[in-house]
């Protein structure tokens, strides 16, 4: 196959490209320029947004012996990921930009361009496994390395996208990937993993949102469940459901126990706080369903994962008009609208939806 290897400049995508080439594919490396104004050097351990990362990717491609190009995807990324991220926060929701990037950029804009240019597939360094099921459909399963499993952020991929995807690292533990990188002479073998959100270079999401959303939401009241005003804040984007730290409420709760963010009402800017047990969620309404294979037609006994690297909850998923509802057999805590609910059948990803609302209790 003719394979387009998306190379961030990190160790995972470098080894993925090397494995794809070794498997006999005709591999071309591409680095996606996602930032409109990339910085020269990385600060901290954030991957894929600097010239240094592009150079790391180029050097890895040299060592592997494949052609390499930089593709400017900054406009598409800004439109589909950054603006969406801002709009979601402005609407009081908590988005996951990595899922969005996979859905709209890596396995859409990049894949579509690649297919048009004569490539057959996109290979990435994501930790997930692809198999062909008995029905002939491509199944995506959790990675062998549970600590690195990234099937959650790939839960937005459809059958058509999966049919043109390669995840060469899904069967390997991370430690083995680093060893292999060193053995292959890849300079990025010891490069730290990237964390946080790639387009917020200093990692201060609250500060970044404050700068971008200052016109949208200037502040509001912090209240308890009875509506009593406990304090005020300078922008609801600073809060996420389940947050405990940084509330800066002067008076302690009557029972002296810590308080958590229970709800964010974006129009008035009201942030509701309360005790931990009030965070418990027993049900979800999800919109924008994306199924990896066949969509479920009736109630499905399954598990769901509600945040990246989060735990699994036993659940029943029932298809609904604009998405699906989830009844959680294991209660979840601190679940925010905007997050993705990824549905699993054992290790297999069934699909995903965006959490629109939660039911408590």
């Amino acid at each position: 196959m003719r394979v387009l290897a998306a190379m961030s400049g990190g160790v995972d995508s470098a080894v993925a490209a090397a494995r794809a080439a070794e498997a006999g594919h005709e591999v071309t490396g591409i680095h996606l320029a996602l930032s409109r104004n990339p910085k020269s050097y990385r600060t901290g351990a954030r991957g894929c947004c600097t010239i240094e990362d592009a150079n790391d990717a180029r050097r890895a491609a040299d060592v592997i012996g494949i052609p390499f190009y930089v593709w400017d995807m900054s406009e598409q990324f800004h439109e589909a990921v950054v603006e969406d991220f801002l709009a979601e926060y402005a609407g009081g929701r908590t988005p996951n930009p990595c899922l969005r990037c996979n859905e709209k950029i890596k396995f859409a804009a990049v894949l579509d361009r690649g297919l048009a240019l004569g490539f057959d597939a996109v290979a990435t360094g994501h930790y997930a496994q692809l198999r062909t099921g008995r029905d002939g459909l491509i199944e995506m399963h959790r990675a062998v390395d549970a600590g690195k499993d990234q099937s959650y952020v790939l839960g937005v991929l459809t059958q058509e996208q999966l049919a043109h995807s390669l995840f060469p690292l899904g069967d390997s533990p991370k430690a083995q990937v680093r060893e292999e990188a060193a053995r292959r002479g890849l300079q990025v073998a010891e490069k730290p993993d990237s964390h946080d959100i790639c387009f917020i270079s200093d990692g201060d999401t609250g500060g970044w949102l404050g700068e971008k959303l200052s016109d949208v939401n200037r502040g509001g009241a912090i209240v308890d469940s009875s509506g009593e005003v406990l304090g005020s804040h300078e922008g609801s984007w600073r809060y996420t459901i389940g947050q405990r730290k940084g509330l800066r409420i002067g008076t302690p709760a009557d029972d002296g126990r810590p308080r958590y963010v229970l709800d964010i009402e974006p129009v008035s800017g009201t942030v509701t706080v309360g005790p931990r047990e009030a965070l418990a969620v027993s049900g979800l309404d999800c919109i924008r369903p994306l199924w990896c294979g066949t969509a479920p037609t009736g109630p499905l006994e399954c598990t769901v994962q509600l945040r990246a690297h989060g735990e699994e909850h036993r659940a029943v998923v029932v298809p609904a008009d604009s998405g699906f509802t989830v009844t959680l057999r294991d209660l979840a805590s601190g679940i925010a609208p905007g997050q993705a609910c990824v549905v699993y059948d054992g290790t297999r990803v069934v699909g995903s939806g965006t959490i629109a609302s939660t039911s408590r209790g």
Partner: protein
Amino acid sequence: MTVYLDHAATTPILPEAAAAMTARLGSVGNPNSLHASGRAARRVVEESRETVARALGCRPGEVVFTSGGTESDNLALKGLFWARQAEDPRRTRIISTTVEHHAVLDALDWLAGRGVDVVLTPVDRLGRVDLHALRDAIESDPDSVALVSVMWANNEVGTVQPIADVVALAHAHGIPVHTDAVQAVGQVPVDFAASGVDAMTLTGHKIGGPYGVGALLLRREVQLTPLQHGGGQERDVRSGTIDAPAIAGFATACELAVKHQPELAVRLAGLRDRLVRKVQGVVPDAAYNGDPVSDVDHRLPGNAHLTFPGCEGDSLLMLLDARGIECSTGSACNAGVPQPSHVLLAMGCDDEQARASLRFSLGHTSTEDDIFALVAAIGPVVERARAAGLTSRSTGRDPA
């Protein structure tokens, strides 16, 4: 088998230049040392200086060897500006054009950030400097102009500038003129003294010489403030141990490039015209950018610059590269991200046209077979790139 159509980026070294360079590489001797080895090295440098001077119509004392085009441009612009302003503090302006190479534009931008009034004259749709605008810019306040800098020929679209007219306008007010002739030497006739310019940038690797060496030709009477301080090796305006082997190779390349220029220009213009005609035969809506007049007063003979509507230049480049055909999008990278060419934008192209363009540049090793290979590949490549171009306009799939 590689089809190399990127001679404007760098052209293969001439065997004679490589021989002249390697002949010196094994010999010890700092040209500034006083002993026999030093004198031997100095002799190579001075003979090279005379060779360059002979080839380009200047005096040997007017050749300042540098590390290449970027250094020569920076030295000319900053050095001339500072020297002229020191002479008369009213000189606060530099007049140039919107289509200069980044070695000029970025140096000017740096100066502008330090209070220099930089005026960039527009160009017409063919990339030629607007002489009326240039005259207006000078005559609005001639005493404030420290220097004028206009490239001899454009590196992207190959347009040859009316340097004689530029010189006449500037010299009428006693203003010195610098020209970046990096792309011109060896392609069109270049004579320093006859042109009347006061400073001229040259580089080795675009004319069949080695990398990392070039010169600033600088009229004897022109004062220039040095940028690099040290031993003052080159006329007290450029310090640094003189690279005798590279200079020997550079001088040989200069001599041969100028000697063979007339016949090379005829041969390349013929090849180039066939390239354009045949590519347009396969891709009828491919637009030929720059000056369509084929002679050396209008266009570099090795330059063919084409816009392929609906395509991304990056896609075209990648697809041609995969078929062994090497060319350039002609655009500079801004922090690693390819930008639409400032030259095409200045010529009135929109962003999309600018991004849909490729530069094919021919040189001394180019053959008819190169043209055949390109013409055979360009049809399917453009078709592919067009299909991909359409996908990249939308942001992937519609939201569910």
